[in-house]
């Protein structure tokens, strides 16, 4: 891949992800509202929110250091870099040599590190609580998420995301009903709920200190920096959805650069995002938020499901 092909491809993928992220957030909110018998905000509301926030002047704590100024843009850049490594519409990403699924996880960890530092920077108890809970829970979620991805990686023999997606797309669709696959999908879905901070792990809609983990860390962020922080959360959400969708349900993904294949790939991707949005919204509506110290049990369940997926994959081979 030459530089002249690399940069447009990188730019296109980043633009796609940035454009879709607020729409996905709006879609989830709309579905949740409808399930709860409300009208809900319009689909494009998150775009309007981001523009409004960008136009406001930020207020920083007088005790905050340069970390508070650097954390929001660095977090966005890190999750965007991770998102460019995950196949969305097209299976053979040009940036594949840059990183595999482990690199994606570590880039999310980089964003989380700086967001947590930003939470501690202002010296408020809310930020400290958010950072402390976020680091503790993410430490538990990361191995659960990785184990379910390892199930697929071991089956395809590579941690490279392009290879995993391509191998999955080439396989017989009936293979997706195998217990190993379904169990790993369930495990990753629970890990996805935890990573994106949705009920039952965290409530993304309130600012009550007892329920907020992610919101606590960005409580002192305001103005255009808050726009960046919210966009980071949305991009991370779409990236994780793309990861789950294309690794476990890779049908329809474009294998070549032809217009027809790309159109089918785009439609398939949007359809998968919509289905996942429905699943997440339904989970949020049906479940209540768990007590903080029950969340490790939930993550343990995800880990156990992935472990069962590994065992059943080996036993049933």
């Amino acid at each position, binding site marked *: 891949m030459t530089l002249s092909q690399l940069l447009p491809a990188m730019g296109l993928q980043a633009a796609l992800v940035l454009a879709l992220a607020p729409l996905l957030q709006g879609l989830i909110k709309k579905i949740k509202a409808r399930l709860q018998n409300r009208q809900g905000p319009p689909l494009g509301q998150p775009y309007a929110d981001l523009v409004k926030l960008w136009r406001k002047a*930020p207020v920083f704590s*007088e005790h905050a250091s*340069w970390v508070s100024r650097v954390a929001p*843009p660095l977090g966005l850049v890190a999750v965007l870099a991770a998102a460019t490594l995950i196949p969305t519409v097209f299976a053979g990403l040009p940036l594949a040599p840059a990183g595999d699924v482990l690199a994606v996880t570590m880039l999310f*960890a980089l964003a989380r590190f700086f967001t947590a530092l930003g939470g501690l920077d202002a010296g408020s*108890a*809310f930020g400290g609580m958010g950072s402390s809970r976020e680091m503790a829970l993410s430490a538990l979620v990361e191995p659960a998420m990785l184990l379910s991805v390892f199930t697929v990686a071991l089956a395809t023999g590579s941690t490279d995301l392009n290879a995993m997606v391509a191998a999955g797309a080439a396989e017989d669709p009936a293979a997706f009903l195998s217990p190993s696959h379904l169990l790993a999908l369930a495990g990753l879905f629970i890990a996805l709920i935890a990573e994106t901070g949705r009920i039952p792990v965290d409530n993304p809609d309130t600012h009550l200190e007892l329920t907020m983990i992610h919101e606590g860390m960005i409580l002192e962020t305001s103005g255009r920096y808050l726009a960046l922080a919210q966009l980071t959360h949305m991009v991370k959400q779409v990236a994780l959805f793309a990861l789950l969708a294309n690794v476990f349900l890779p049908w329809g993904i474009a294998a070549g650069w032809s217009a027809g294949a790309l159109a089918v790939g785009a439609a398939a991707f949007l359809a998968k995002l919509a289905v996942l949005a429905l699943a997440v919204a339904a989970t949020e509506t049906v479940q209540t938020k768990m007590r903080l110290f029950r969340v490790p049990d939930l993550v343990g369940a995800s880990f156990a499901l992935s472990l069962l997926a590994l065992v059943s994959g080996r036993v049933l081979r």
Partner: protein
Amino acid sequence: MDSGESAYLVSAVLFAAGALGSLALRRRVAVCNGAAHGAALLGAAAALVAALRVLLGGEALSVTLGQTFPFGPWAFRVDALGAFFLLAFALSALAASGYALGYVREFYGRDFFALGAAYNLFLLSLLLVLGAGNAFTFLVVWELMALTSFLLVVFRHREAGVTRAGFVYIVMTHAGTACITGAFLLLFRATGSLDFSAWAAAAAGGTLPAGVRTAAFLLALAGFGAKAGVIPLHVWLPLAHPAAPSHVSALMSGVMLKVAVYGLLRFLPALGPAEPWWGAAVLAAGAVTALLGILYALVDVDLKRFLAFSSVENVGVILLGLGAALSLQGLGLPTAAALALAASLYHVLNHAVFKGLLFLGAGAVIGATHTGNMDRLGGLARRMPVTSFLFLVGALSISALPPFNGFVSEWLTLQSLLALGLLAPSAVLEILAPVGAAALALTGALAAAGFVRAYGMTFLALPRSEAAAHAAETSRPQRAAMVLPAVLCLALGLAPGWVLRLLTPAVAAWTGAAPVAASGWGAAASVGALAGRITPGLLFALLAVPGIAALFLLRAAARQRPERLGPTWGCGIAPTPRMEYSASAFSQPLRMIFRQILRPRPELEARHEVSPYFACYLRYRTEITPVFERYLYGPAARLLVEASQRLRGIQAGGIRLYLAYILATLVFLLVVAL
């Protein structure tokens, strides 16, 4: 004698000269400081030259200095494996010695010369141990290393707890040395020689009996494990590393622990082809060490003790790579074993660099505030900007975040564990290896949590004590010395191909196969059916280019709507340092989640006047049960003391009794001899 050998000898001479000069100049402390640490700097540079000469030139260097004892000559041989560890040593010693020029000014006094002398002798012993060519030389220099490091640990003996730390350290290190000596003696009895190369030749011939091999393996694992800080033999680490002066802690954590790993790597081929359970034993030891190490680190509020436990965790990660290499070697998969060993060695170098940086930074903080308790620090990012930035680089590297070096070695270790899972024929290994990889990911995430806490509590928000509020930036030599490891953290992370090229000769000699295919900027793990790639340089570009664009956008927006400052929201109350999260508060969720392992014991005392809901006095204390000290070492020590007191009964004191003992011994010896 070629340039590598002369560089090695020059290095040794410089360290010795530094020690002697320190003794000679003991009356003029400033000159003594300059002479001792200047000599150490030059010696470290010479060691670096020697290491690079061997690694890039391909020829091992060997020096024999005659024979004074009948056990063997003083033979030194630095091959590719030793040279790689020598490289890590040289880089750490450069940073620590430069740092010491500014740091030790607070120790100026009557016995200052002892610090310079012991430091140089410590460096000399580390240099020589990495090149020891036979078992006798190795043991002598090993003991020198133990004694000099003991002197350095107890240098600040007037402070509370330091002498106890030194005592525990000297006992544990000698217990370890006893095990190592036992292993060496077993091999001496079986092969008749103390030379390492003679052992390797005998092992290739397959002449060692199985019992001897098992016993030697267990003794070596125990002995080198005690020195490396493997759980449960780690109890000296969190005592000794905080007690020593910070530049010494940097060397102990960064180099001395790795010298134990080097010893294990040097010794294992002498036992012949690895048994399958050896790899599993090392893997299990590594996993337990990594997990427990980071858990105990997370609940500690002393900055240096936190870093010491973090070193325990990293030794566990190194052993995970080593165990995977042993297992894969035993399964007859040398290419995969090469990948695992490369991961382990890469982490050795990385840890020396970033742990050295972190300890030097911690020393700067403690020097400025006179406290290492994170609950008394804070707000230092404003007062010590250079130190805080460099400490952040170290924290990012140790948390395995791209684009720094920790990310590459963690990635390689995860890939080698996955390779073990993919290529192992047994179903158990196929399931346990990915679980092990997930456990490694857990320790990595916990380490990140720990370092968010360490950096956040020490440097961010408001100062929690007067001392922290009046801290000043450190001296110039200290800042300059910390820049080298920080730059290396980034360089070693951006160019993994170069580092892998440096460690290929060592890996090839040990496993018989070359490790991963790697170009200058990328690292790839292609082992049989497993394939994966990272290119940290590309990741850096992916981060830097949009990052700079984002900063420009923010700058443009700031011109129209500039930022304002305001007080932190505290529900309407003016913020005070008491409202901030403390280090013990930050780790409370993890304390709760892992309470079965950590066994915290909280004590809450509350006094009220009117109603229990309005307490006027609250005292909260939480303590982690010291499991190993209480249930392992305490009973063992008590048993030992009891046994000694029983044995004292034979010392009744009467001379006639002692004469009777002599007669009885004589008769016994005559009977046995005849």
